[in-house]
């Protein structure tokens, strides 16, 4: 019989968490092993995504990372079945190359993140760490409607969800868009999204921003609508976007006067990365447009 009074209790052992990782080659395997070892996670490695499916059906895992090298037929179908078998397990998809529609499918299936090769190691490590640390992630991103050319979604106002969404966009390595243009669009989107979540949604997880991605034949457009009261761009004296050309830091003094933390660079950085940055009348909805020059191989 166990008595409570006067007994000394040992702390309950924390169950070791386990990740299922599909083989993606020595370099990525070692990178991931290092992350999991530092977090005291154990790792079970399988050869391909099909084996992963049979494994997750029989056992529970806290995090599943699909493989980019040993593809079996219908990889995304396997991912779908993994999600069906373990709907709340965090799933990070590694694809050897981007295929149109993959990112949308990954978001629809509730993947935690999506990467297409070549992989940026720092970003992959950051995302795995976020998957390990995030206490709650389900429902952060909701697809409202979607085709590969036009996706509309709602995203919860927190940094972790923003980070996941930025990586989904980063993973869409559309080969018909020059890499520099893709980077510019992701950079502008990052600034506008975080701005909307902070100032419009106050990083309140009960609030959502609404986002549209549109891929036209010669342009990419992104629309971000936040739940805030809006603002007038020309009245933002504390933002670099309104600093005079000869005094790029003048807004910093204004921020100090107003007791604001250092910052105010996001809107200007976003504006410089795209061709058009347009706010609606209320100032809570912004449209980014980047015109895409065809790659030399596509030019007529």
């Amino acid at each position: 019989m166990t008595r409570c009074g006067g007994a000394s209790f040992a702390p309950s052992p924390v169950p070791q968490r386990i990740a299922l990782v599909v083989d993606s080659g020595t370099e990525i395997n070692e990178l991931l092993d290092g992350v999991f070892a530092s977090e005291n996670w154990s790792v079970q490695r399988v050869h391909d995504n099909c084996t992963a499916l049979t494994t997750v059906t029989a056992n529970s895992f806290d995090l599943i990372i699909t493989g980019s090298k040993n593809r079996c037929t219908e990889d995304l179908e396997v991912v779908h079945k993994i999600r069906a078998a373990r709907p709340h397990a965090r799933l990070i998809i590694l694809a050897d190359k981007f295929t149109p529609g993959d990112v949308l499918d990954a978001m629809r299936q509730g993947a935690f993140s999506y990467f297409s090769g070549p992989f940026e190691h720092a970003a992959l490590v950051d995302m795995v760490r976020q998957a390990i640390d995030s206490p709650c992630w389900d429902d952060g991103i909701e697809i409202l409607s979607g085709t590969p050319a036009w996706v509309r979604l709602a995203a919860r106002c927190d940094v972790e969800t923003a980070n996941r969404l930025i990586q989904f966009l980063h993973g869409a390595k559309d080969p018909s868009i020059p890499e520099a243009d893709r980077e510019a669009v992701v950079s502008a989107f990052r600034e506008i999204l975080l701005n909307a979540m902070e100032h419009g949604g106050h990083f309140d997880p009960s609030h959502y921003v609404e986002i549209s991605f549109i891929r036209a034949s010669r342009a990419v457009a992104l629309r971000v609508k936040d739940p805030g009261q809006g603002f007038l761009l020309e009245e933002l004296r504390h933002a670099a976007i309104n600093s005079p050309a000869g005094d790029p830091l003048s807004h910093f003094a204004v921020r100090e006067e107003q007791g604001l933390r250092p910052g105010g660079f996001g809107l200007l950085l976003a504006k410089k990365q795209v061709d058009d940055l347009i706010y609606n009348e209320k100032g809570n909805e912004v449209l980014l447009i980047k015109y895409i020059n065809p790659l030399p191989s596509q030019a007529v």
Partner: protein
Amino acid sequence: MRECGDVSILDLLGRSTIDAGESELLSKHLRDLTATGKRKLLLNLVNLSHIDSSGVSIIVEMYVSVKRSDGELKLLSPRGRVLDVLRVFRLLDVIPSFEDETNALASFQREFAPRRADHRCSQEPRN
């Protein structure tokens, strides 16, 4: 971090972005340095691959703070996307930037000429 005489050199790696939390980390490092009286800071950006507005804010904040303490913050070897971002804000017109570490270190000694310069550099990077 390395030290060369009275100049503190921070070798930045990877990304300085708000979503990865790295900007917060950089801010803490810089605040710790200035809190211990360091007033000659050289940020080595050669291995910094990305920077967003939060990273820029940290650099500008520290530049302003150090300058008010009669110190100097300078940049070393910004590259690629990081250089592009710094140019967007015309920060290279305001914050001195160098391509060569020796020249950067020498510039600190010229500006602080009344004080005796100590040119000994630490051999091992410090954590």
